[in-house]
């Protein structure tokens, strides 16, 4: 395992296999929170933080709890419980330790439990048999990819507020069409990294 491999893994999670635009994970918040730039940034940071942390914790739970007892088939239940309690814990810790950070990230944290990117990353880590370092790096890269897509989308949607759009396409439909075009652009990165 080298620095190069780690950097490639991050780049692949951000560009080639972007969680939102290529893997369709986390579409609900991507459409729901991309109306304003500052809330998009807040959501992106919160998701990146929780994704990294939950990748580490779910890896540990899988390796040291589920595998020794041979109950891997319970991984979905175990992971979602771990993620839900982790999110709650992070929320409480941030609230106590840094009220200013809580003010900017706090309102997004409760929503992250139902963000499929978090459970998706945990499941992919197990499927690809990543070790602890790779899992955490992959979670972090996936979070960055989500943040990038969300911020780009929010910037575009803020501009679209003032543009003339056919009445029937206003709101969510045009957001999906924009996402389609962004996804098309991101397909240009395919071939950058061979997996």
């Amino acid at each position: 395992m080298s620095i190069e491999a780690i950097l490639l893994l991050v780049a692949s999670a951000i560009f080639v296999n972007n969680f939102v635009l290529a893997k369709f994970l986390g579409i609900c918040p991507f459409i729901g929170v991309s109306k304003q730039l500052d809330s998009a940034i807040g959501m992106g940071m919160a998701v990146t933080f929780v994704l990294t942390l939950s990748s580490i914790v779910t890896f540990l739970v899988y390796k040291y709890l589920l595998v020794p007892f041979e109950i891997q088939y319970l991984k979905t239940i175990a992971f979602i419980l771990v993620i839900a309690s982790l999110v709650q814990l992070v929320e409480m810790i941030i609230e106590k330790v840094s009220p200013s950070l809580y003010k900017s990230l706090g309102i997004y944290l409760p929503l992250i439990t139902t963000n499929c990117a978090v459970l998706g990353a945990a499941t992919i880590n197990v499927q690809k048999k990543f070790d602890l370092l790779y899992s955490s790096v992959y979670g972090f890269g996936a979070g960055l990819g989500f943040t990038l897509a969300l911020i780009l989308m929010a910037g575009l949607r803020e501009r679209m507020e003032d543009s003339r759009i056919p009445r029937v396409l206003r709101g969510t439909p045009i957001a999906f069409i924009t996402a389609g075009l962004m996804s098309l652009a991101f397909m240009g990165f395919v071939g950058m990294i061979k997996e």
Partner: protein
Amino acid sequence: MKNFTRGIFKENPIFILLLGLCPTLAVTTKVINGIGMGVATMFVLFFANLVVSLIRGFVPAKIRIPIFIVVIASFVTIVDLVLQAFIPSMADALGIFIPLIVVNCVILGRAEAFASKNKPAASMLDGLGMAIGFMLALILLSFFREILGSGTLTLQIDLFGKSIGTIIKIPFLMKHKALVMIFPPGAFLTLGLLMGYFNSRKKEPNPNTNVYTLMTSHIAKRKSFNNGW
């Protein structure tokens, strides 16, 4: 009866409520995958609604969400194991989106908004209607994507080593494939255009009911928020 039909048209989870979009976009490359995902979701939604409705009397309000999630996750595990055992080809095609049914907002949304407040019979009907609405949307989306992207309509499933059903082939479209439709961009474009079409059939514009938009505005109003999410 209203409980049943509401989910199919008036409050279609995908086109109106904007819930459960991740699996919708991801698995709709073939019609059969759309049907498979729809059936899997239907099973989970039906039984999760039933169980949540049955236990609604004695679930403490503060920890209801984690309890609902555990109920849902149990049924998802059943679906996951059954698919892997009996229809492995379908399990491969749907991939990680089977475990991700747990975080499909349609299911948690219905458990929270309907089943936790209504009687079992009504909740079962609601779950069934929502699931049918979800499945119809998946079939519609995969119909356009597959027919334009590969020129076929796959209605074939491998069960116990035998292939059941057929693959409808359209020679002209098979010669002139729009490959982009089965790649990720095609999913976004098709869904956006279909939503636009359904908007054009209605008088009033869509109420924005995306759970994230709703909650962020709701939370921003209340500033403090702590009820177990």
